[in-house]
């Protein structure tokens, strides 16, 4: 949206500014020097120190205002150097100087304001300490805005005012994040805590503070992680036809609003403060629901705390066709309570529901439960049965791969159809994204060493929307880099969310391929590593660290009987439309692809004919991206790491070489 512009006059010169811009920013942008003490670039302006005072005139009235927190809304006349302003600032500076004569920041401001008399306001309050606290309040705002805590604040009134933690004691909630120390203009705050014994606490702090500042200033306009956590992704995925609906048949649904971030924020999430995921984390994205009344199962009628729902859980509800946030909360609560993963539970149930709707299983197989899409109450019954180890819940708990085999063997179910709609690879259920239109993500899921989960690679936007990795080699390069980068987080016990769920504005200045990496955050993490270990690390070094582990994981996967080509194929539902209903729901998209990418003219052809050609095309595309990725990773055509690659990485241990040899 284009911002409204206003013309103001500053010291006789006309300047065009965006409405609601703070006046101090306008002045600084125009090279006008204004003394400040309590102002900090990453903090909300507060007007505490009053040094940034300027004189404004509007419709005949003149008054002094603090420019830092004065939003421009009228065609005002601003004077930054009038006699009145100079007099006010000088008096203020003399008062500061009288109280804190040796603090360098105060001495500098006094010089700027022409205040030279140390004695004028000298009193019993005068503090000779060069690192005295000057009561600017920056630390209090940093604590609140950077990490959403209120551990430090003013106490006392008037001349007795001072900055402290509650009851003059070190508050146990303080994690020593150093945000207060970082913004303090005088050095009054010093934190000794270095319990992890980093090689350079300063390096860590400097890079960490950038993230804190970004969270405080950018998140509200980016992903809203602080406000709604990962639930924000529900809205985005629905909008981009990527939210799994009815066992990944579709990518959006008219009822998504019933489980989206707006619904969860307005009617469910109650804890707005940072939770215990990682105390001191400035993102604090985990949200919870207090006093939620449970309607079923062993906790029926009790009021509980629900840790979530996060994106994957809410999306799993869409996948089961259960567009009901009460259900999402209860499903979330019981999965947590029983120790069940909401993704596997949701994806497996979506498969069961589609099988039920297709008559593959009936109420006879489910203990009388009509497990159609949307059967929320029945899903909870199945969960309780699973936890109790009885009834259909026992089968449900075995997962998709097991269910497929049972139904084929015992019920004569059609193998091909179950294979197509059973969303698992390597025995693990898919996480909650529709990958049909993103070839790179199909491989991202199916090649992921531990099964189709998204924390090894998520490249749907990069591929499907941005079209920035068009060739097989481009996709293979992305499928080489991102799994290694993401593995690196796991290697060091770091959370990935601060990498790209908050993005510095300077990312705009990089060419797209680089921008996707969020290069400044990659640098921050590498610097963090250096600060912690004392060893510098560049991108190549990071990739090598991860590649060692990634290849080792692949060989372990092999030892468990999975890590070869045959294990790296996704079910066709992940690649394209399995049913007529699916094809016809997005007929324009699929017909277009047939026209543009194949020799087949869809005009006048039956859906069955079109589906067959589309499937052949998409499966061939998948083979090509898989082959290109194996090659880029240094694996053979069967997807097994080569001995040469292990040598390169310095992990050609005899026992690993043996695994390769045996399985060749």
């Amino acid at each position: 949206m284009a911002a409204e512009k206003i013309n103001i006059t500053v010291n006789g010169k006309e300047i065009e500014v965006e409405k609601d811009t703070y006046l101090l920013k306008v002045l600084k942008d125009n090279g006008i020097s204004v003394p400040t003490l309590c102002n900090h670039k990453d903090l909300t302006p507060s007007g505490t120190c009053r040094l940034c005072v300027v004189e404004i005139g509007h419709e005949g009235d003149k008054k002094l205002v603090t420019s830092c927190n004065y939003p421009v809304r009228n065609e005002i006349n601003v004077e930054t150097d009038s006699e009145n302003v100079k007099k006010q600032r000088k008096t203020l500076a003399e008062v500061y100087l009288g109280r804190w004569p040796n603090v360098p920041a105060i001495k500098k401001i006094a010089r700027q304001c022409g205040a030279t008399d140390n004695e004028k306001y000298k009193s019993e309050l005068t503090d000779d300490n060069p690192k005295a606290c000057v009561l600017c309040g920056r630390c209090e705002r940093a604590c609140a805005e950077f990490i959403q805590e209120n551990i430090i604040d003013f106490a006392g009134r008037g001349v007795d005012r001072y900055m402290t933690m509650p009851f003059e004691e070190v508050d146990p909630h303080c994690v020593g994040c150093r945000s207060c120390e970082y913004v303090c203009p005088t050095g009054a705050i010093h934190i000794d805590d270095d319990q992890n014994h980093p090689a350079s606490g300063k390096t860590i702090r400097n890079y960490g503070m950038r993230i804190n500042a970004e969270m405080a200033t950018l998140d509200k306009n980016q992903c809203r992680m602080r406000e709604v956590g990962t639930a924000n992704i529900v809205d985005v995925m629905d909008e981009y036809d990527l939210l799994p609906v009815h066992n990944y048949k579709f990518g959006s649904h008219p009822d998504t609003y019933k489980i989206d971030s707006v619904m969860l924020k307005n009617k469910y999430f109650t804890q707005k403060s940072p939770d215990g995921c990682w105390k001191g984390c400035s993102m604090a994205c985990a949200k919870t629901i207090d006093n939620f009344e449970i309607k079923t199962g062993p906790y029926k009628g009790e009021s509980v705390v629900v840790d979530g729902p996060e994106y994957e859980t809410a999306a799993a509800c869409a996948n089961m066709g259960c567009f009901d946030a009460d259900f999402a909360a209860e499903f979330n609560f019981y999965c947590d309570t029983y120790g069940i993963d909401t993704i596997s539970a949701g994806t497996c149930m979506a498969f069961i529901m589609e099988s039920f709707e297709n008559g593959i299983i009936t109420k006879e197989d489910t203990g009388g439960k009509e497990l159609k899409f949307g059967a929320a109450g029945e899903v909870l019954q199945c969960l309780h049965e699973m936890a109790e180890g009885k009834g259909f819940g026992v089968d449900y708990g075995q997962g998709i791969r097991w269910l497929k085999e049972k139904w084929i063997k015992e019920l004569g179910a059609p193998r091909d159809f179950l294979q197509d709609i059973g969303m698992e690879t390597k025995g693990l259920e898919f996480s909650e994204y529709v990958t049909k239109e993103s070839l790179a993500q199909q491989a991202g899921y199916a090649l992921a060493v531990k099964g189709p989960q998204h924390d090894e690679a998520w490249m749907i936007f990069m591929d499907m929307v941005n079209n920035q990795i068009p060739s097989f080699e481009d996709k293979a390069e992305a499928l080489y880099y991102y799994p290694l980068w993401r593995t690196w987080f796991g290697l060091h016990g770091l959370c990935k969310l601060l990498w790209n769920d908050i993005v510095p504005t300077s990312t705009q200045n990089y060419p797209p391929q680089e921008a996707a990496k969020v290069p400044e955050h990659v640098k921050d993490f590498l610097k963090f590593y250096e600060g912690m270990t004392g060893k510098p690390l560049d991108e190549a070094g990071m990739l090598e660290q991860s590649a060692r582990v990634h290849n080792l994981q692949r060989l372990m996967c092999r030892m468990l009987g999975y890590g070869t080509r045959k294990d790296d194929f996704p079910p066709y539902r992940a690649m394209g439309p399995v049913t007529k209903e699916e094809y016809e729901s997005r007929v324009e998209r699929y017909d277009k692809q047939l026209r543009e990418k194949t020799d087949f003219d869809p005009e006048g052809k039956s859906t069955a004919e079109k589906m067959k050609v589309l499937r052949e095309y998409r499966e061939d595309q998948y083979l090509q991206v898989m082959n290109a990725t194996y090659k880029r990773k240094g694996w053979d055509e069967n997807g097994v790491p080569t001995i040469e690659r292990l040598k390169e990485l310095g992990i050609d241990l005899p026992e690993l070489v043996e695994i390769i040899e045996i399985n060749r």
Partner: protein
Amino acid sequence: MITVNNRDKLKWEEGMTVQEVLDEMRYSYSLITVTVNGKLIPAKEYDSCILEDNSDVIVFHLAHGG
């Protein structure tokens, strides 16, 4: 004709803005950068940046989540 992300084609109209392209493509995501013929367009100019015919628009979505 406007080309979006080297792939999608939109009919050009006199006075067409970047914002109209975003709306038509249903690109509502919060983390995007836009270039027109290689030149970066700041977010606040999406409404006022008028496209010439045959412009090459890149709407780059940065991923999050996942």
